[in-house]
């Protein structure tokens, strides 16, 4: 075979292969759910994004039941989990300015890892199972698995381009805001996360309900910007 013909055959093969792969990719992306992989930082309150998007609501605006109001009045602010370098729970963590988190899909679950690890810790969002199917096996027999956990049991599913997370089974050790509003073990959160502006930003909508603590369900909205860096070591407890 003449050399030029051989070369043209190779180039043709590469071109066809490239078109095939490109086509396969675009077809896959048409029907696929969004890939949220990346590191994101919450936009400070008051910032108006292109398209008019801006944060709304705040954990400070929640309306408490009478018993929860009474409990808040007697709380000692020194016991704030934030000040004690303990997890503060997603209702409070996600509302904060400049919260940095990594979203990491991992097969049948998605991890959300917080840069401020001590306060945010990490979330595991499970697909393909219900709350009642949660694994209760201990990795270390000396440390028993507890049903009620800091971030609740989080189950996720997609509604078109929106990741919907339903969480229950919270312990009652986190607060709902900096003023000491507490919740009960009946706390139930629903979060909706969707990419906007081509994935440059995430819209995050949090709704919390707790008949024992909240007079009515409360919703706030935050926006996160995708940033081009890795999470850094930021550990509150190390500084103690």
């Amino acid at each position, binding site marked *: 075979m003449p050399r030029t013909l051989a070369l043209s055959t190779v180039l043709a093969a590469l071109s066809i292969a490239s078109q095939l792969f490109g086509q396969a990719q675009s077809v896959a992306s048409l029907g696929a759910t969004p890939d949220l992989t990346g590191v994101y930082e919450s936009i400070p309150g008051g910032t108006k994004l292109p398209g008019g998007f801006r944060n709304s609501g705040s954990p400070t605006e929640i309306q408490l039941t009478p018993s929860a109001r009474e409990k808040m009045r007697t709380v000692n602010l020194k016991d704030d989990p934030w000040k004690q370098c303990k997890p503060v729970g997603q209702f409070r963590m996600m509302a904060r300015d400049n919260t940095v988190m990594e979203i990491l899909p*991992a097969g049948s679950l998605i991890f959300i890892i917080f840069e401020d690890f001590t306060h945010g810790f990490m979330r595991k969002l499970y697909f393909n199972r219900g709350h009642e199917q*949660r694994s209760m096996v201990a990795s270390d027999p000396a440390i028993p698995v507890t049903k009620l956990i800091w971030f609740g049991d989080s189950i996720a599913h997609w509604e078109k381009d929106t990741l919907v997370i339903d969480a229950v089974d919270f312990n009652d050790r986190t607060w709902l805001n900096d003023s000491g509003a507490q919740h009960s073990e009946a706390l139930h959160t629903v979060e909706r996360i969707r990419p906007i502006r081509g994935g440059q930003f995430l819209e995050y909508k949090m709704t919390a309900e707790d008949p024992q603590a909240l007079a009515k369900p409360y919703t706030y909205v935050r926006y996160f910007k995708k940033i081009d860096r890795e999470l850094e070591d930021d550990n509150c407890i190390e500084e103690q």
Partner: protein
Amino acid sequence: MLKPSGVMIWIALLPAAAAAQSGPSTDWTGYYMMARGKDLAGLNVIGSNLGTTVAEHLQPWAKLKRESIDGAVDDNGFICKPAGFLRAYGSPFDTNGYFVLGRERLTIIYWPTDTVLFRRIFFNAEHPRNLKPSWNGHSIGHWEGDTLVVDTIGFNDRTWLEGLGAPHTEDTHLTERMRQIQHNGNTYIEVVAQVEDARALTSPYTFSRYYKKQNFEMEDYVCNDAVDFYKEWRKEAIEHKKAAATK
């Protein structure tokens, strides 16, 4: 019937060539626990007692420092502070991990996460210049067939080489060869590692570890949840040590 042409052969070969460069033929993603007991039968475990292995390679100053360590007083991990993964290779309970294999990196989320933390092994990357020392250093990796060859530097000097306080310096250099294997019907990650540190070790040492894939979830565990208890324990240990010194 369509006869295979040169073009079709090229198309068929291209994905195979790409796959050979991009990583293993199996998916590593999942929760693994350090294998112990019967799960190790038939596997080539090197340096099962990491404390003994490390002690044989320590320079005199490092041996002295290790002997002076009081676990309850000096152990960072004891009070839920970061301790890093390096020392966790010596403990069967401290290097469980969720492996997440992506195209550009392998992320390992260790358990308990608040002490052993995370690790990211970047493929086709170089160590940055002016690396800031950290608990788990900076890891880069490349694939040799189904084996991931990992090079890690940039550790701070606050971690230990094993659970009894063997010190090291910021010169520590860890090389690991990781591969997924099937053994007795189970899936494992095999890690064969070598540790070098010209300022702390008389010579490099080698060990291997096996991580067995689990079919249950990595549970939530917040070490700091019980930190008040641990802190009280440490306070008593420090007071006891002070009292013993003044006698």
